[in-house]
């Protein structure tokens, strides 16, 4: 039997494994604020194809976003549901182009709609707010639930990654290179970020489709981790050491240690909530799955272009 502080990764032996942790930031502990981050993981098989999904959200901490921890929780759930829907509708072998296209073109809009519906339902049931849907659309309700969102899905040899707002999506490739496939040159500086509650939020998404056939390590993190490091080198070093630690100590022990690591970085660095989701993608075995053209990287929908 596992100890209380041990964490079991989830996943599929042929595809890969995932684990995650969300920790309240040291500055939140001092001020009695809750953790406003959230994550969700999902592993399953749809039409016999194993699939791994992870999402991370960081609710805005400002007082105007007083429901943002719920907004983050609703966002990660919406991401999982939309990804499952994507795979269900377009995930059959041989139709990967439809999956990729739908992810690029429809996913941000559909997810935004699902999140807003969930926010309205939550406001009605938990905050006991009343009024028509039209009224909600023009109110500051969504601002109160504002959150960033990062989401990824691995299926076959395709890796889909999407992100709105800050945080970091990282891929440690099999050759040791750390990629940041969703980096944006025009990223906002300071404490302002794009958000699911932003106007025209679906245009502010950045998405990419990558080839995962060689395996690798995918990390989704809220900005609390990124801001704990003083520069890019430290972040790269962290990613590489994480992989080394997994090889040396095993997935279970590393996964169980992650909460302590995040507390360490928050306490000494950012002070912010930190959430980290990790997916270790198995390299594709010979003869496994069909070859698909999934090496294209497409980034679209930054806020500055909208």
């Amino acid at each position, binding site marked *: 039997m596992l100890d209380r502080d041990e964490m079991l990764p989830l996943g599929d032996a042929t595809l890969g494994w995932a684990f995650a942790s969300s920790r309240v930031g040291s500055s939140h502990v001092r001020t009695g604020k809750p953790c406003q981050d959230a994550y969700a993981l999902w592993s399953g098989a749809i039409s016999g194809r194993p699939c791994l999904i992870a999402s991370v959200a960081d609710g805005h901490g400002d007082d105007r*976003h007083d429901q943002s921890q719920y907004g983050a929780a609703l966002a990660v759930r919406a991401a999982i549901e939309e990804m499952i829907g994507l795979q269900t509708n377009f995930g059959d072998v041989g139709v990967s182009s439809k999956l990729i296209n739908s992810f690029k073109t429809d996913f941000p809009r559909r997810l935004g709609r699902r999140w807003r519906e969930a926010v309205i339902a939550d406001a009605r049931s938990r905050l006991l707010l009343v009024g028509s849907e039209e009224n909600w659309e023009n109110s500051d309700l969504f601002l109160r639930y504002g959150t960033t969102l990062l989401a990824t899905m691995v299926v076959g040899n395709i890796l889909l990654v999407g992100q709105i707002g800050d945080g970091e999506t990282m891929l440690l490739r099999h050759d040791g290179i750390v990629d940041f496939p969703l980096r944006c040159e025009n990223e906002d500086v300071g404490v302002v970020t794009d958000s699911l509650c932003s106007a025209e939020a679906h245009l502010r998404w950045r998405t990419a489709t990558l080839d995962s056939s060689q395996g690798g390590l995918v990390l989704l993190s809220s900005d609390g981790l990124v801001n704990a490091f003083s520069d890019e080198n430290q972040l790269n070093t962290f990613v590489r050491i994480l992989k080394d630690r997994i090889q040396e100590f095993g997935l279970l022990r590393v996964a169980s240690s992650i909460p302590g*690591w995040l507390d360490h970085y928050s306490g000494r660095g950012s002070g912010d909530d930190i959430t980290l989701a990790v997916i270790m993608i198995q390299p594709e075995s010979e003869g496994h799955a069909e070859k698909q053209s999934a090496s294209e990287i497409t980034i679209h929908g930054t806020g500055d272009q909208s």
Partner: protein
Amino acid sequence: MSTVPVPDVGPITQRALQFFWIADYSGSMSGKKIAILNQAIREALQPVRDAVAAHPEVSIMMRAIKFADSAEWHVGPDPVSVEKFVWPELSQAGGTSTAQALRLLAGELTKEKMPPRGYPPVCILVSDGFCTDPPEEYEAAIAEIVRLPWGKRAVRLAIAIGDPADYDENQLLKFVSHSEVGVLKADTPQKLINYIRWASVAASVGASVGKSKAGGSGSDSLNVILPAPPAEPAVTSNNLDVF
């Protein structure tokens, strides 16, 4: 089960908040104005230190630009931790080259020079007179600051000293990031002391709360939120004194 050691990525440092004083030491600042300015900034340092003590993840790095006939560093260009920052005595001389000072500031707010993961910088401009640089230079300096991502997101406040007839409020207002605050008008020594303390503390705390906010294009109104400036000081025999 024993825990796996935390990855050692090198020294984990606090996030930096870059703080700039931009202080006028033109000839018109002579006498009481410059003396009170020196006193007020020195007295504001400890409240700033105290305020950010509640945010140990924040490191305030301070420097100062002074301007008269030209602009130059009073403390800098290398920033100094607020814990070690000392305000050297400023004495008056010459004209009011505000535009040059703002150019110097803009040069420090570039992505290359600002820490990538820092907090929004705080810039406090204190002046008592009309800019003596050509108007187009002033406009260009303001445009340059606002064009820079860090300049746009900076908390920019202006404190005007003395009689409103002696300075151009609209000109100073162009520097200010928070229209709801406007130009802080210090026509008495007590107001100057109050505003310098308020501006330095409120801007430091506001910029360092470490929270993400919904933004995107057209969201300037969603920048760092500041509390209201202090009310007019109560009338006492001391603060009936004017510049």
